[in-house]
């Protein structure tokens, strides 16, 4: 349907779950996402690392089809975004909790389930079980703690069992114990075949990802495993690697 040839799957390995091709998003003179191209393989956890304002959220919104690109395109599971029907195969946990505080935990889960076209109440109950909120089903969300709300927010992104999951700073404001739990959920989902893109500006979470993409000023400045990136930058930790690869600070080795 498009004039450009749809990118065909290379023979090697499985087809990419997510693909970006020359993706650009401009807001006036600002290029929030500046010519990004990559393929992300299914069943892996990708860490999108970068400082605030580097374009991580805009990149996720482009990949999730929430905003049309200025140039280039994004593909999820072989379908070009934005595509409304494709949204039922994508889970998106926003940076804000994005849950209704006047509703109960169960009502929120069922509501988002209905929006994703999920049939019956069981998937919502399963998602709440997964994040350990089953005993708070009847609680009004406004009465929950910040961590509980974050768990509900995650559950609402999982109800329809999406094969692709975008998590925008999922662990901000989350205590260390819950953070460990979150990451074990993410790992279990990836093992079951879910492709996960996690954005973060916390470098110590990076080693839990299978692969890292360093984002800076709307560009991917480095990609690889934590070890590869450290080796490439010749630094001992990722934070220094980031500064080094950004090229604006000469880091003492």
């Amino acid at each position: 349907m498009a004039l450009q040839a749809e990118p065909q799957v290379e023979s090697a390995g499985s087809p990419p779950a997510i693909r970006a091709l020359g993706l650009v998003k401009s807001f006036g003179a600002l290029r929030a996402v500046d010519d990004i191209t990559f393929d992300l393989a299914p069943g892996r956890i990708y860490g999108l690392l970068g400082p605030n304002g580097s374009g991580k959220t805009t990149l996720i919104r482009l990949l999730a089809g929430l905003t049309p690109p200025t140039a280039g395109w994004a593909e999820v599971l072989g379908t070009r975004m934005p595509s409304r029907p494709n949204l039922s195969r994508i889970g998106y946990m926003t940076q804000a909790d994005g849950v209704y505080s006047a509703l109960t935990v169960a009502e929120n889960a069922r509501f988002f389930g209905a929006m994703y076209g999920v049939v019956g109440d069981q998937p919502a109950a399963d998602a709440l079980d997964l994040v350990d909120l089953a005993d708070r089903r009847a609680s009004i969300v406004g009465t929950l703690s910040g961590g509980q709300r974050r768990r509900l927010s995650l559950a609402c992104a999982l109800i329809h069992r999406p094969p692709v999951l975008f998590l925008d700073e999922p662990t901000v404001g989350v205590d260390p114990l819950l953070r460990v739990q979150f990451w074990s959920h993410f790992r279990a989902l990836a093992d079951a075949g879910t492709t996960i893109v996690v954005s973060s500006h916390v470098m110590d979470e990076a080693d839990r990802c299978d692969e890292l993409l360093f984002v800076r000023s709307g560009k991917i400045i480095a990609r690889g495993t934590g070890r590869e990136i450290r080796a490439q930058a010749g630094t001992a930790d990722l934070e220094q690697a980031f500064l080094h690869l950004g090229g604006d600070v000469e880091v003492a080795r």
Partner: protein
Amino acid sequence: MSRRRVVALFRRVVSEIRRDRPSLALLFIAPIVITGLVTFILRESQAPQVTAVVVNLAGTRGQLVGSALGAALREGGATVSDVADEAAARAAIGDKAASVGVVIGTDAATGSSLTITAITNGLDPSGEASQVSAVLRSVVAAASGASGTAVPVVRHTTVYGTPTDDPITTFAPAIVGFFAYFFVYILTGVSFLRERTGGTLERLLATPVTRGEVVAGYTLGFGLFATIQVAVLMLWALGSLHVPALGPLPPFSIGLGVAVNGSPLLAFLVVVLLAVGAVSLGIFLSTFARTELQIIQFIPIVLAPQFLLSGVLFPVSSLPSILQPVVAIMPLNYAVDGLRQVFIRGADLGVPALQLDLAVLAIVAAFFATIAALTIRRDVV
């Protein structure tokens, strides 16, 4: 359009409002208190305290009219006294010893027919107008009692309904329409703004829901509350449940006892169409607001002109001609007119004026629903 998604949105909106006590109070208690208060003020100010001084300058013929007039005025609750001449009457009114003077004279041109002149203070035009109309009513009453005196007879009749001094009859339909519009707009605007600022809209739009489904779900949810509100308000306006004296309590009645000639179902239809437009207006305007305070700040821009120009307070016909084109584009105007057609005229669907009102309201609702849907996907970043 997926029915399941619309129903889920509808149920969510309903649960949110149901748990929001201040909003419920705003929806149901506020209009009842305000309409009750307005009715009380308007009805009680119906009987202005009339202190009349009567001057007869027309001999025995005038005497006859003067006593009939005095009797009619007294029957209306006025205090009436006779004074010798017009100067004395003017002095009494100037001192505020009397509120109105009635001079019965002989017409200078014909020398035979009687004239009646009302004198007022001149400092409070609207209050004095009611004094003059009290005199006028008494003249009508007196004329029937004193035949052959050649006092011109004034009668009042109306095309629709019956002549009434009860201003609530025309006020009630207007207020029902205005409250439905006002509260539905505020609640939808604030509620949708919370969707935008709370991050739930972002998340909602990450699901396969369509904009049309969102507008439909919201319209059904707030439409339900608007409908219940209108039902309650109409019961309140039309009802007249008399409670007999009980112990130390005096007898009183619940409800405003407004007469209605048409079908309450048609009145519903008018208000529901208006409310659908108000839901979409709230969604649309929430695009331009960043805080809940700004939703309130739209009231002087969006609602106040409609309140002033839609015949709620001032009759549309009394508005300056330069404003008439503006009046013609006010959705509330058509709702108020439609409700009056139903309440007072008893109009049914065959009445062209009501058909026009319904058609305009439907078009306005469809128009705002479309632009509301178009603005939902505005980039929030």
